């Protein structure tokens, strides 16, 4: 057995010493596979569920670019509640949601005076050097120092060169040249146009939140965003309709029986519209009903429960024990685990979420029910299907 094998082995210095054909085949396969992977990565940039319209080229993103949830923060760099967010909530948010890849975090500076403007520009100048997020932290934590400096540009350049290891000369040159002045102005004009009010101001996919809050307030909103806001329709549909309504509103029920089914069949099911429902909460009754919809959502029956509350509003209004009716009757009719549903309602598991959504409606100045935003364009009232159709088609046309 030994001799035939050794007879084929090339001897040292033998003229037959050559590279086998299979070796070149392996190299060919590696080249083709590698090149294909590179080409694919170039052709299909990672697209988040919400669509990249939220993020602009100006933004620095903390976290994975394809994270399903986008959190955008607007804040001025010397605002005290904003510093509280940076110091307390942000590290937890980063650890729990950004690092695991659930959230991509974007920060946009708001400016109200000259020192703020310089600091905001310095943020982007530091970004050029790969230190956007370190600079943001430093600016928040040392706002009393740079706001008091007579020459903010020089102060920032010297201090951040010393503390963060930035190229101070490059930073100062960048500030003196006002390289990012227009960008900062543009960010502020956009923020004012979209009604950014209290600071820090957040947008978490489709939900607005104003103020510094503990992580417990962010958590249910991020979780909702991660579930795609229980939206109907394709994630990449070009039109997003948001509806605010409540079962006790007669016009809302009228809309849900007339225009809504047609929107669903003609636009949602055809992939042109993504449809998001938001409860409009004005009292304890509507709050508990709204919570029941999210409790049912935990068991995979969000829309079913939403429709059940609209169809059985009279029974709910007359109920002596609303939790009992929602959990035992509604839950049972929809095949839910009624004990889990009851616990969810009694423990107020979605109380914070519904409160945030209520505040979101206030921030958007939703006037009453039913109200709609069609790609951000407001429509208030139970209009006939044709009105919706016209607005959707306007959004669909190039």
């Amino acid at each position: 057995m030994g001799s035939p094998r050794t007879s084929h082995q090339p001897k040292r210095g033998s003229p037959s010493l050559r590279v086998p054909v299979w070796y070149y085949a392996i190299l060919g396969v590696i080249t083709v596979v590698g090149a294909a992977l590179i080409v694919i990565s170039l052709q299909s940039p990672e697209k988040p569920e919400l669509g990249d319209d939220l993020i602009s080229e100006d933004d620095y993103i903390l976290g994975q670019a394809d994270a399903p949830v986008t959190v955008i923060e607007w804040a001025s760099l010397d605002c005290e509640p904003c510093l509280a967010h940076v110091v307390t909530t942000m590290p937890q948010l980063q650890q729990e949601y950004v690092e695991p890849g659930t959230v991509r975090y974007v920060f946009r500076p708001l400016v109200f005076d000259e020192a703020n403007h310089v600091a905001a520009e310095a943020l982007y100048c530091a970004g050029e050097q790969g230190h956007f997020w370190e600079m943001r932290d430093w600016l928040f934590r040392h706002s009393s120092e740079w706001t008091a400096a007579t020459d903010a540009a020089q102060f920032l350049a010297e201090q951040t060169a010393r503390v963060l290891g930035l190229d101070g000369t490059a930073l100062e040159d960048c500030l003196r040249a006002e390289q990012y002045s227009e960008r900062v102005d543009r960010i502020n004009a956009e923020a004012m146009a979209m009604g950014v009010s209290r600071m820090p101001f957040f947008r978490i996919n489709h939900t607005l939140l104003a103020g510094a809050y503990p992580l417990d307030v962010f958590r249910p909103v991020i979780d909702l965003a991660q579930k795609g806001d229980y939206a109907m329709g394709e994630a990449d549909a070009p039109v997003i309709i948001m509806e605010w309504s409540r079962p006790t509103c007669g016009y809302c029920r009228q809309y849900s029986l007339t225009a809504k089914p047609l929107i669903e069949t003609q636009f949602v099911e055809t992939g042109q519209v993504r449809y998001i429902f938001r409860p409009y909460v004005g009292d304890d009754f509507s709050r508990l009903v709204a919570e029941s919809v999210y409790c049912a959502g935990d068991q995979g029956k969000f829309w079913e429960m939403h429709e059940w509350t609209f169809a059985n509003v009279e029974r709910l209004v007359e109920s002596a024990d609303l939790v009992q009716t929602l959990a035992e009757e509604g839950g049972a009719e929809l095949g839910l685990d009624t004990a889990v549903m009851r616990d969810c309602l009694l423990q107020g598991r979605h109380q914070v979420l519904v409160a945030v959504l209520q505040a979101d409606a206030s921030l958007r100045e939703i006037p009453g029910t039913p109200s709609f935003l069609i790609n951000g364009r407001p429509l208030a009232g139970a209009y006939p299907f044709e009105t919706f159709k016209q607005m959707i088609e306007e959004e669909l046309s190039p």
Partner: protein
Amino acid sequence: MTTPLALRLRMIIGVLALIGLLVAVYLALYENGLSQSLVCPDEGCDKVNTSEYVVLFTVRIAGAELSLKVADLGVIGYTITLIVTLGWMTRREMLRIPVGVILLGLSGFGFLFSLYLTYLEVFKIHALCTWCVSSAVLMTGIFALTVAAWPAERSPAPAQQRH
């Protein structure tokens, strides 16, 4: 004509250099703004490949600024290594210089440069880029194999050639 052991080691070096070249091309596309994102388990890739250390030097030619990025140097280095390895796979010399010496020089420089880049990632940028680390590992592998092939490269020339 080279020895069978040196040939086998060069075959492995060729595979590593090809993979390294693909990694370097992927990073160079990003560093030069031709792709928008890197597939990476964390933000380390973004942090490293957008840092100030990415640009090695900039020259101004006819009013246009041309920068040589770290990944560009990787593309050049791996390409030369691949060409030398594949082109002179069964030869001892290239332009009268022993191929082993050329590979040792290339991979030695690549290895030291990779060490420097890893130092920057850990101590200056405070982030690790998975692709850059992969490239450093590949270059280290190439260097180690070149060193391992050294005795075989230096062994006496085959008897037939001496005749």
